[in-house]
């Protein structure tokens, strides 16, 4: 029981952190909690399909306690020497974007955007490798502006990102919003507003509030934007519960067997106890008292083993350097796998263990309680 509890505490802690980290990666690095677009933009992403009065909406959301930033989006080509690649341009408001996204913290080399450096851009890692550029070197970008003319310019690579997600990794080019507007001849409007909800507000509640503020616009949660991933995470949570249940069912069988053996081996003593006047309730009490003592000892040992191991994993974690840069279902994996250490990490495995052991003890305990003393005393 102790070993199983230890295993389950570690498993719960690791899986809980993994799922939380995955959600945090999605929300912090990719899409935010919610995104607002002009109607039809997601079906047909066009430079011309914009949210016109973004500033009023941003002010309204910020006043309601939400963090929000506007982004400009476009596609085109980037080239350096003889290499070129298709890229996605992100024009961001550098100060407010840092309130909403943690992309700026994922620099592999160089430095993040500086609004004062109008020709500085930051690239995804694989794109930089493809173009064979390092910070300080130049790239040429090529696209089409809103005026129909060619949008082309020379930019300095300020920094290179890592572990942000496959889209950014393969083709992300971040630049200040003002630079984007100048390059694409886009004086007004934005393509996307990324919103982060207050910590105590549920996602659905936040979605309703943002929809109310952004009438006539398309508001979607990260779960709407990444339904496959959301479904995968729900399945993973279900799998976590199933794993706990499977392990504990195995324990239940062991406990049931052990308690039945206990009854069988002590059948004579149980018969004597009944003969001497212990009531069925008393025998039930004895059996459950034994279960409580054994389970309490198992819990104490399981927690004594689990707490330091979990603490180590929570603080140090597993190094997964070989997985750095890889992604699961399009979400970048962290290079270190930590564990969550919370009351819930312990409470769920302990609670399930107590429930399972209680159920597994009930049958042998009832069998013992209603044993026929005459037959039990003469049992050989």
């Amino acid at each position: 029981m102790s070993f199983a509890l230890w295993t389950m505490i570690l498993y719960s802690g690791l899986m809980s952190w993994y799922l939380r980290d995955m959600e945090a990666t999605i929300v912090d690095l990719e899409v935010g909690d919610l995104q607002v677009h002009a109607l039809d933009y997601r079906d047909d992403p066009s430079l011309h399909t914009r949210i016109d009065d973004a500033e009023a909406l941003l002010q309204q959301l910020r006043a309601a306690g939400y963090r929000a930033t506007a982004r400009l989006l476009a596609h085109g080509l980037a080239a350096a020497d003889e290499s070129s690649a298709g890229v996605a341009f992100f024009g961001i408001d550098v100060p407010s974007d840092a309130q909403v996204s943690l992309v700026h913290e994922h620099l592999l080399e160089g430095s993040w955007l500086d609004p004062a450096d109008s020709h500085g851009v930051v690239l995804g890692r694989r794109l930089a490798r493809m173009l064979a550029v390092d910070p300080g070197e130049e790239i040429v970008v090529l696209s089409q502006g809103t005026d129909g003319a060619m949008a082309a310019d020379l930019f300095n690579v300020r920094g290179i990102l890592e572990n942000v997600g496959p889209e950014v990794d393969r083709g992300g080019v971040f630049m200040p919003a003002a630079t984007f507007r100048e390059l694409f001849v886009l004086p007004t409007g934005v393509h996307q507003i990324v919103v982060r909800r207050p910590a105590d507000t549920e996602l659905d509640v936040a979605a309703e509030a943002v929809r109310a503020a952004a009438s006539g616009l398309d508001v979607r949660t990260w779960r709407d934007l990444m339904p496959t991933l959301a479904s995968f995470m729900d399945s993973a949570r279900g799998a976590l519960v199933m794993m706990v249940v499977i392990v504990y069912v195995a324990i239940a069988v062991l406990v049931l067997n052990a308690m039945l053996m206990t009854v069988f081996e002590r059948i004579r003593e149980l018969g004597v106890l009944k003969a001497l006047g212990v009531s069925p309730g008393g025998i039930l009490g004895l059996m459950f008292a034994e279960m409580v003592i054994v389970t309490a000892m198992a819990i104490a040992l399981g927690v004594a083993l689990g707490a330091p191991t979990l603490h180590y994993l929570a603080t140090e974690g597993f190094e997964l350097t070989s997985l750095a840069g890889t992604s699961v279902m399009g979400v970048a994996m962290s290079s270190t796998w930590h564990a969550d250490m919370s009351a819930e990490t312990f409470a769920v495995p302990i609670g399930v263990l107590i429930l399972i052991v209680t159920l597994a003890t009930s049958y042998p305990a009832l069998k013992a309680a209603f044993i026929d003393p005459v037959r039990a005393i003469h049992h050989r």
Partner: protein
Amino acid sequence: MESHSPVVVCKEVTRVYRQGSQEVHALRGLNMEVAVGEFTAICGPSGSGKTTLLNVIGALDRPSGGQVLLEGRDLAALSQRERSHLRRDRIGFVFQAYNLMPVLTAYENAEMVLALQGVDIEERRERVEGLLADVGLAGMEHRTPDELSGGQQQRVAIARAIAADPAVVLADEPTANLDSENATNLLDIMEQQNRERRVTFLFSTHDPRVMERARRIVRVVDGRVETDERRT
């Protein structure tokens, strides 16, 4: 020594067991009374119903018919819980195979019924130490059953049976597993307890040594009382 008020009354008691498709009539309308302070042996051949009779009187088994009264209470009218309490408070048991708790010491075994009754620990100590001394086990209180001889274990069983001042002690073949010397010692102790504490003993036996010492011998044959002999 014994008074005429009956502690046990059996009226037309029957007990029928089913063994497969067959019915076994262990008791066939048995009648008997046991008065307070009696020292009674129930004898008879194997299968005559001696043990069944003790089980029925001891509220361990329910009769198929008839009535068993213990201190005037009809055992058939009691719930399972009431029967448990009756066994705990008013009946002492001595088994052929001693049936002590192997993990408990002699002292703990002897105090078990008192502990079940919730008797104060000091009072328990006083009574149990006195009883163990009476049965010749002073100094052996902390020994577990595997550290005691068969005779010593049976003496602990007697101490356990009489510790709570029961109305009757039921002993099923108490000397069957003992050698002659231990059987004699045990009978001495039982007689002494009967004489000094007025403990009512009712025991089944084949043992002629026991029958010699009994002041009443009830012979049971085919589930009925065949003879009932009282000695002065």
